Every structure is written in C-alpha cells, then in structure tokens.
C-alpha cells in the first residue's frame, strides 16, 4: 500500500479540477467529485493554449537518456573489467582507489558543478544541445555503470577469461566473445540504473538547456507554478514513469530467470 498510495492519489488527482483539489479532500471520481480530463489534455496542448506539450521533451529525454546510458555502459564496462581483472599501480593508487575515484564523482553536489559545466559547454559550443546533455550525463552515469560492473565482474570467475585466452583469444576477443555474453544480466541491471538516473535528472537538464532542447522532467517541473495545476502535474508524473515500468519488467524477467549474477558456477 505504501508503495502505490501516492500513485493512486496522483491518478485520482489527475482527474480533478481546482475546486476538487482545494475545497476538501476527495478520493473517488464521480462519488467525491466530477472528473475532468483537463489534466491529461494539458500534456499535449501547446503552451499558447495553456498546455505543456510534453511530446517533444519526451523524445528528447528518451534520446539523451539512452545515448548517455549506452556510452556510459560501454566505457564503464570496459573500465570495470580492467579494474576487476588487472592490477593497477601508480604511486599509492591501487585498483580500489581508481574505483572510488569513479564513484566519488557522484558525491559532488550538482549545484556547484552547474556554473563550471555551463562555461565548459558554452566553450565547446554544446550548450542547449542534446549532445551537451549527453556529455554531462556520461559523468553522472558512468560511475554507476563502473560500480555495478566491477561488482559483477568480480563475481564472474576469472578462470573463464583465462580459459578463453588459453583457447586462443586475445584479451579483446576474450572480453567480447566470452565475458560480455556472460555478463548480460549485469549489463541489464547497470543499464537500468543508468536509464533511471538519467531519466530522473532534473538539475543539469534545467541549467544547461534553454530553448532548443527541453527534457521531460524540466518540462513537468515547470508546471509547478505559483498556482500549481495539480491535476496536470499528477498526469505528467504518471506519464513520465510509464516507460520505466517497461524497463522494470525487463529487469524483472532477468531476475526471475535467476541468472542475474549466478550465471556461472
């Protein structure tokens, strides 16, 4: 109940109007209040008619999230593989320190990175562009990918890669012919985390875009004006979570198969 209660509330609210929200507490449409579709209609109307038009931002969000996730996963997986399998030494720096360096990128409060990122992106001319956001999101997402994949690779016996090497694969072949196919569950979990964290980011999307590119959360949050239209806000919250529920089902499928990380041994 605790999990779904807010969603039910949001669903109910999305069919309300000003009076149904503000005069007293109401729950069930028709019984407690007259349902209105206004909240949902707003989502596809143009702003000039009082709508928010989330269609384009929706696709922008999908593009940015997926691109950044894919790049982060590719780079992060490679790095994680290296950190899991090989020994690095440079001065006092060891594998764990490098791993921590990756993860520590998430410690920095985003607020303060906003101005530097802004200047950085404007210098390279990527402000207010999808590519610019992808670049920034890579920083947000790669640490997650590295962290999950290091953990995952640590649980894949290294004898597996060794066998591949002995069987005549060079390290790259061993990686993509043997290690990768056996890491799909890990990749899926890492991918899901990347997608989620990319999808729900508000702050960077907010600071680094202007007119050309708008992402979904920014667009939805922009609904939260002084007179908040709770109904459309609720509707958009529901709409924005929808694609991720599909992701959740994919992940669950892999979980159910039970081969998430126990693929080996």
């Amino acid at each position: 109940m605790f999990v779904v209660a807010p969603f039910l509330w949001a669903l109910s609210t999305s069919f309300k109007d000003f009076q149904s929200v503000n005069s007293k507490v109401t729950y069930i449409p028709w019984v407690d209040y007259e349902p209105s579709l206004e909240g949902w209609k707003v989502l596809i109307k143009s702003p000039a008619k009082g709508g928010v038009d989330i269609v384009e931002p929706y696709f922008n969000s999908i593009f940015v999230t997926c691109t950044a996730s894919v790049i982060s996963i590719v780079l992060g997986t490679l790095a994680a593989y290296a950190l899991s399998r090989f020994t690095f030494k440079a001065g006092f720096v060891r594998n764990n320190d490098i791993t921590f360096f990756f993860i520590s990128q998430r410690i920095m409060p985003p607020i303060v990175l906003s101005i530097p990122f802004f200047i950085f992106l404007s210098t390279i001319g990527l402000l207010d562009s999808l590519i610019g956001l992808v670049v920034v999101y890579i920083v947000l997402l790669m640490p997650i990918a590295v962290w999950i994949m290091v953990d995952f690779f640590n649980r894949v016996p290294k004898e597996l890669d060794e066998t591949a090497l002995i069987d005549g694969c060079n390290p790259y072949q061993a990686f993509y012919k043997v290690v990768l196919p056996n890491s799909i569950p890990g990749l899926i979990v890492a991918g899901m985390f990347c997608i989620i964290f990319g999808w729900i980011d508000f702050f960077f999307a907010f600071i680094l875009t202007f007119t050309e590119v708008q992402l979904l959360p920014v667009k939805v949050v922009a609904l939260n004006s002084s007179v908040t239209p709770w109904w459309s806000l609720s509707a958009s919250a529901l709409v924005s979570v929808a694609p991720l529920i599909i992701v959740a089902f994919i992940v669950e499928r892999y979980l159910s198969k039970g081969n998430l990380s126990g693929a080996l041994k």
Partner: protein
Amino acid sequence: MKIIKTYVTVLISTLLVFSPVAYADKWSDQFPHIKATGDIPGECSYESMSKKDYSGKTLKINTHAVPVMGEPTALHAEQFAKLTGAKVDVTHTPAGDLYAKAMVPFQAGQAPYDIVFGFSNFINDWKRYLEPVPKKYTEMRQMKDVTKSHIGVASWDGVMYQFPVDGDRHYLKYRKDVIDNPKYQKKYKADTGKELRVPRTWKEYGEIASYFNGWDWDGDGEPEYGSAEVMKKDDLMYAAFFSRSVAYSKNPRTPGGFFFDLDTMKPLINNPGFVEALTDWVEATKYVPPGGINFGLGDEIGSFGGGQTLFSFSWDDALIAAMQDDSPIKNKVAAAPLPGADRVWNRMTNRWENQYNQAPYIVWGWAVGVAKKSKVKEMAFDYLCFFANDANHQADLAIGRFGVNPFKKSDFDPNIYIDTMGWDPEIAKSYTDTLLEMEEKSKNRVFPLRVPGVFEFTSAVATGTSKALAGQLSPQEALDEVAKEWEAILNRVGKDNVKAAYAVGVAMEDNKL
C-alpha cells in the same frame, strides 16, 4: 496637447472595450483571444505589428510556468509570430528558478534568451545585463497609462529596465459573506463585544481570524480557518512578513529608510516595529489551517480560493481564483487595503507613536527585460509592447489563470470586472478602489528592497522569521539574528554599494522620485 490626445485615446478605447456590442474587426476574427474588444489602436496594436516583418528572425523567451504568465507569454508569442513572421521560442521555468536560469548565463557572458521574465526585485542584479527600454517605448501612449508605482518598480534611478506587463501588490482579501453577514456580526458582537468588520489593524485581523478559526462557518460540512498566509520558508515568505511589518514600522514622519537607516546603513529589521509584527505573525500560526505554517503561495491561493479561510493577504491570485466562474465562493469575497496598526514605531525618537498608521507594500511582481546581448532587441521590445497592448492586456486581465493583473490607470475601472468577468459591482469596486488607493494615492508606500545581494538579505529574513514561527527562537531573538546577518552581508557586499542602491528605493518611498 499631447496629454489631451492621450486622454482621448484612452477614453475612446475604454468606451470601445465596454460597449455592449461586441466589436468585431479583422483582427479579432483571426485572433479570438481579443474578441471582446477587437484590436485597440495603439503603438503596438495588432494592426501596427502586422506591418512589421521579422521573418527569418528568432526570438527566445524564458518565462514562468504555465499558466501564470507562462500561458499569456506563449499565447502572445504565437500571435506575434503570426503577425510578424518571426519565430518565437518560449521556455517555461518554475518561479523559484527564474532567477538562476537567467543569471547563470548572464554571469557566464551569454544571452541564450532575448527576453527574460523574472521578478521586479531582480532588477539590481539583472540591470547590468539588461537593455534599458528605449525612449520610443517609454514615451509612447501605452506607457503613459501605467501607474506611477509600476513605472517606479520597473525603473532604476529613472531608467526603465523592465517593461511593464503586469501589476502586483499585496492587499487584504476577505470573505464578504461572513464579514458582512448580520447574523455573524450579531454573534461576534455578543461573544466578543466588538464589531465584526473589515479589519483595520493587524490586531483586529488576528482577533477576527481566531474567532472564525476551526469551525464550519459556511455550512459545507468541513471546518474553516482564519487566515491563509505564505509561511513556508522560501523566497516569498519574507514578502508576507514585510506586509505585516509596514503598518508598525513605516512611519511617514521618519523618512530615510524602512529596511536600513540610509544615513548609517544600520539595519532596522530588529526594531520594535518589526518585532511587534513578527509577534503578531507567530500568533497567526494559531489561526491558519492545519499545516498552514508550511504554506507556499500556491497553498495560500488554493486555500483561500478554495474557500477554506476567512482572510488572506498577498498578491491578486487568491482573489482571482476565488472569483473564477466555477468557484463556489464567487462573489463572496472582497478586497481591502492591508490592515494598519494603532501605533507606529518612530525610530528617530525611539518611541511608539499612538496613532493609526497604514502603509501599502508595493511588493515586487512579474517583470520582464530584454538582454543587452540580444541580437534582436528591437523585435524583443516590440514583442513586449505587443504583449501589453490594450487589447491583449484587457483580454488577459479577464483570464484569471494568466496572472496578469492591473497596472494601468485604465485598469482601475470596476466595469472591466463587472462586464467581462461577471463580478458583483460592489466587489469590483472594492478591488479597484483598493488598488487605486495603493498605487496612486498613498504617500506612505514601501517599495521592495532592491539592493545588491538582495537575496542574501531576504533569505536571512526568511530564515530568521521561519525560526520564530517554528518556535525555535523568540521574535526578538530571531530578528536580532537577522540584523546581525544583515550586518555581515553589508560588510561582504560593501556598505557603500548597498547604500547607493538603497537610496534609489528610499527616494521613491519618500516621494522624491
């Protein structure tokens, strides 16, 4: 000669607006938004704009979220694009982020937006990045109609940086069906020995609100409460506090500063006048709805507009919300000036003066400017001018959710609200009278603080008062802390910087500008 001409045009246009016969012309056919009035001739009318050709050019605008300001911005952008061939991109941003959204690129030397919406108290921080409104616009007829207060709010030391498109002020809103109800008047008299009337002082406000707190006085089966106020610790909270403070601290006999003593730049925020106001406010936590101490502006509007409280005071929105067509309390609410006080602090003599005092707080509101680095300044100003042209403005006024409120002298005509919005004449008159009184007549006005580092000052106020409301500190302690923080900010920012800027505001308050 010019004045007469202006007057005549205003008169004619006013007549045209309110003539019962719907005025149809080619523009209102094309743009149903203005079907009530049709195009009204002027410098930036539909007709004039249609003669401009901005095709191939792009105008980028950052505005507030839909619908408040955001929707009219987008609507007029669409119209403007149609008329001039320009491409107009509009971005919507929540109120709390408007400042940062423009300020980050400004400080990085960029101007991603040609037009930025914000609040009038951003002016000091923004003005160096904004293009002053060219003479051509400041001297046009449309501008002459703007009230003195709003010209003042949009300008800095006589130079206009923000194009007036909206008017804002704090005033009192009350439930007319209760205050004017003879049954309640009798009951109140019997219970308290006092008259039930529109409160003239904050003490009276508190007494009445407490009396009507926590029981069902409108018969809807739900309890109602005394007052809805912005008490949530965010950027708007301090404005509510200042609205409550002006009565005790803005003494017309002590010119030279309300927030600071302009001569010494000593913060006045912890003088007995402010402390008295904060004491009242802490008392107010007892007659707000449950959770009222965490109400933001949206909650306040929802609460009063939804019929949950007897009183409210802040911007127009709550009243407009209550007067919407689908509102059950339409025509049951009315407006009045902010309450005053029976005594006022004199900071020169360090004494209370036992004399009735009332002061309007011309609180900041929506403001909009054109970026200095914009490459399409002329188009930008034309757009703003078009936004606020008579036809658009009057149509906008009638749509509550737009959040466009009166700021032109011609707006203070009760008939606008009676005819186009179906208000009860008495209520419409209370509304326009209240506004007119504040905007044009009062000589004891307080203007928002507009000095460098204004957000640090107001944020300190919010933090301090919020601690008092939460009971963490006593009002005196809280304000002493704020005063101390203000001193620290003054030192960081530089007393002289602040003083120079504050002098501009003080000059307006002292009716010198």
